[in-house]
């Protein structure tokens, strides 16, 4: 029931996003076929006819919406669902193909970044909380605040000079090998790690003074066991609820990093699509991102209920 209702709201969300984006895209001047070298009127008309841009906007609205709902059928067999149509600017591809190629890149980047952020952030937060006011704590927290305060494009540029050219650990940019993923993933994960570290530290400090922790210690449990099994479980809630916004942050961040590191991911495709007025591709990107964000938020809610028995899904 919970899942069904969520699904219903997701469809509504997607529809709202589709409508807003459609309106905005068509309202922005410049079409997908504007060029520096002007093309003769007759040719322009041919092009518009080919892409059905000469139809009334309402018709275009439904023309684009229909295959999203029904998918693309060939000879009675479903070929693609949802069908985003052909890309206007990357002519040799359909939007589905662009997403199929771009999504793994962005997803890989996001997974590495999030895993890195969680590992670093949680451990730094726990260490800070346990050794409160030690030099380690102070330096961790200073680094964490710095991580939040420096724009990630500055961070990435400095990281390139340091890790690529001074230390020579990684290649400069591009996609294909693990080494190439590492640096952008670290840059992307750094601000999130910083935030998680602060949340964990705050949560831990609050929990460590609770009676049940004292009881656990009194029972003679090992400190590590107390911290990981008892304290962390109580302190992790704010971190989990931050994962929703973190996913959104990964989104924005990956746009910047995909540009700086020249990665063929979805953020890169979207910025280009918006600049080039590639209506179908931009729409595809937005809808996929909306879907991901929604799923992420739903997952966060579920995890919440899993971790904290007091919370019920509704």
């Amino acid at each position: 029931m919970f899942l069904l209702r969520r699904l219903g709201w997701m469809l509504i969300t997607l529809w709202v996003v589709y409508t807003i984006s459609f309106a905005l895209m068509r309202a922005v001047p410049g079409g997908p076929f504007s060029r520096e070298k002007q093309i003769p009127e007759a040719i322009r008309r041919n092009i518009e006819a080919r892409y059905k841009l000469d139809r009334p906007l309402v018709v275009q609205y439904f023309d684009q919406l229909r295959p999203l709902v029904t998918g693309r059928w060939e000879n009675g067999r479903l070929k693609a669902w949802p069908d985003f149509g052909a890309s206007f600017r990357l002519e040799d591809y359909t939007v589905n193909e662009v997403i199929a190629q771009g999504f793994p890149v962005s997803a890989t980047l996001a997974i590495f970044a999030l895993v890195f952020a969680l590992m670093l952030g949680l451990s730094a937060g726990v260490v800070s909380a346990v050794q409160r006011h030690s030099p380690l704590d102070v330096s961790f927290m200073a680094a964490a605040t710095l991580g939040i305060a420096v724009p990630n494009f500055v961070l990435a540029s400095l990281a390139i000079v340091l890790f690529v050219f001074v230390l020579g650990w990684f290649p400069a940019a591009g996609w294909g090998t693990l080494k190439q993923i590492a640096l952008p993933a670290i840059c992307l994960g750094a601000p999130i790690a910083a935030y998680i570290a602060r949340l964990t530290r705050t949560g831990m400090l609050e929990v460590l003074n609770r009676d049940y922790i004292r009881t656990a210690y009194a029972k003679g449990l090992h400190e590590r066991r107390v911290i990981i099994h008892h304290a962390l479980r109580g302190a992790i809630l704010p971190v989990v609820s931050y994962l929703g916004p973190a996913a959104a942050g990964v989104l924005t961040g990956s746009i910047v990093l995909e540009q700086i590191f020249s990665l063929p991911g979805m953020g890169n495709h979207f910025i280009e699509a918006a600049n080039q007025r590639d209506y179908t591709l931009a729409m595809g990107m937005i809808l996929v991102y909306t879907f991901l964000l929604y799923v992420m938020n739903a997952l966060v809610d579920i995890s919440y209920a899993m971790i904290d028995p007091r919370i019920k899904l509704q």
Partner: protein
Amino acid sequence: MPASPKSEPRPNPDALDDKSPSATDDARRDRYEQLLAEAQAIKGVSLWKDAWRRLRQNWAAMGSLGVLITVSLLAFFTPLLPLQSPIDQDLENRLLLPPDSTVVYLGQREALRFEANSLKAQLARYDQRLDQLQQERAQAATAEEFAAVDEEIQQIRESENPLLQLWHRPGPLSQAMIRIRLAIFGDWSLPSWAGTDALGRDLLARLFWGARVSLIVGVVATFVSLVIGVTYGAVAGYAGGAVDAIMMRIVDVLYSVPFIFVVIFLITFLTEESIKKTYLEPFGINQIMIFYVVIGAIYWLTMSRVVRGQIISLKNEQFVEAARTIGASRARIIFRHLVPNVMGIVIVYLTLTIPAVMLFEAFLSFLGMGVQPPDVSWGLLANEGIKVITPIRIYWWVVLFPSTALALTLFALNFLGDGLRDALDPRMRTR
């Protein structure tokens, strides 16, 4: 989350019992309201005082507050400071100079063709000419003559004012401040302690003028989000029931909208020439205001959720009941009685939103959608900075100073936000 008892100021319950409320008796009601207001005022002060006392003990937060106040003051009084021109390029001699300590005089660049290569002298000549014309205008015999001289004055103001050569469209207040500065320091200005950029402009001056834009964007956009978020959250929370459910569902839906994409569309759409001419300029809306509104419009979501939660926990408290009993309107209850009580958490949230907004501005600058030159912002400067970090050569000053300024401000805002949360929410005092 139940709010702590301390943060809920209540009117004196005794006062309520003594007098039976009567909607018809205006005089009594007025007095009653006055009493109520007084009671609230007293309690309110003590709450803030309490928080202030706690905040003062937090040296990190106090230091941050000091930094922020200094930065804001410096930004506001930038025209008064003996800085070089933020827009005057010296292509021949000053491209990408590292920080140095050679004093620079305003107007010394030959190509400006200023009298005696001095801004002060040129300004004096301009003022003199204007005076002369104004006298002529005063002595004008006929209406046509008056109009002709008047027009000339207008044109000279527009085209010959030397201040316009060195600053980008300074407003009247800025012009006045620049004149005061000229009176105090003359043409002398600070050396390029922060170096110069790729077009030979002084980075120190650009940093200060950029601070004005960055801070204003941060504050105004946050204020917009505050107004929308608080109103929306308070209305939803107070109304409850179906209205609340619908309003919060809308927020949920919006939460899943990838706003960065919508913003990119919105900015391209709203900054487009024809749209601006038709819809925005008649109302005096310019690029930077669009910016405020667009950014503000994104950040209200969390604010509204937080406020709603607080309002729900407050709305059944006695002081609200009391206000309702004396017939206060809904709007009045929400905005006069409830909203002031959630201000604590709102302020905490504000100090955390401002840095987010400033970072977002930097992000938009990275994509080339930030403020338009020759206006500068820290985001724009940082973005110019990363263009010159290459392994061939690093012009470190171009990236270091703007990034440091930005980071320092965001640092301070974060610390202040933490401090305020601790101060306003005693439950967290264990930290």
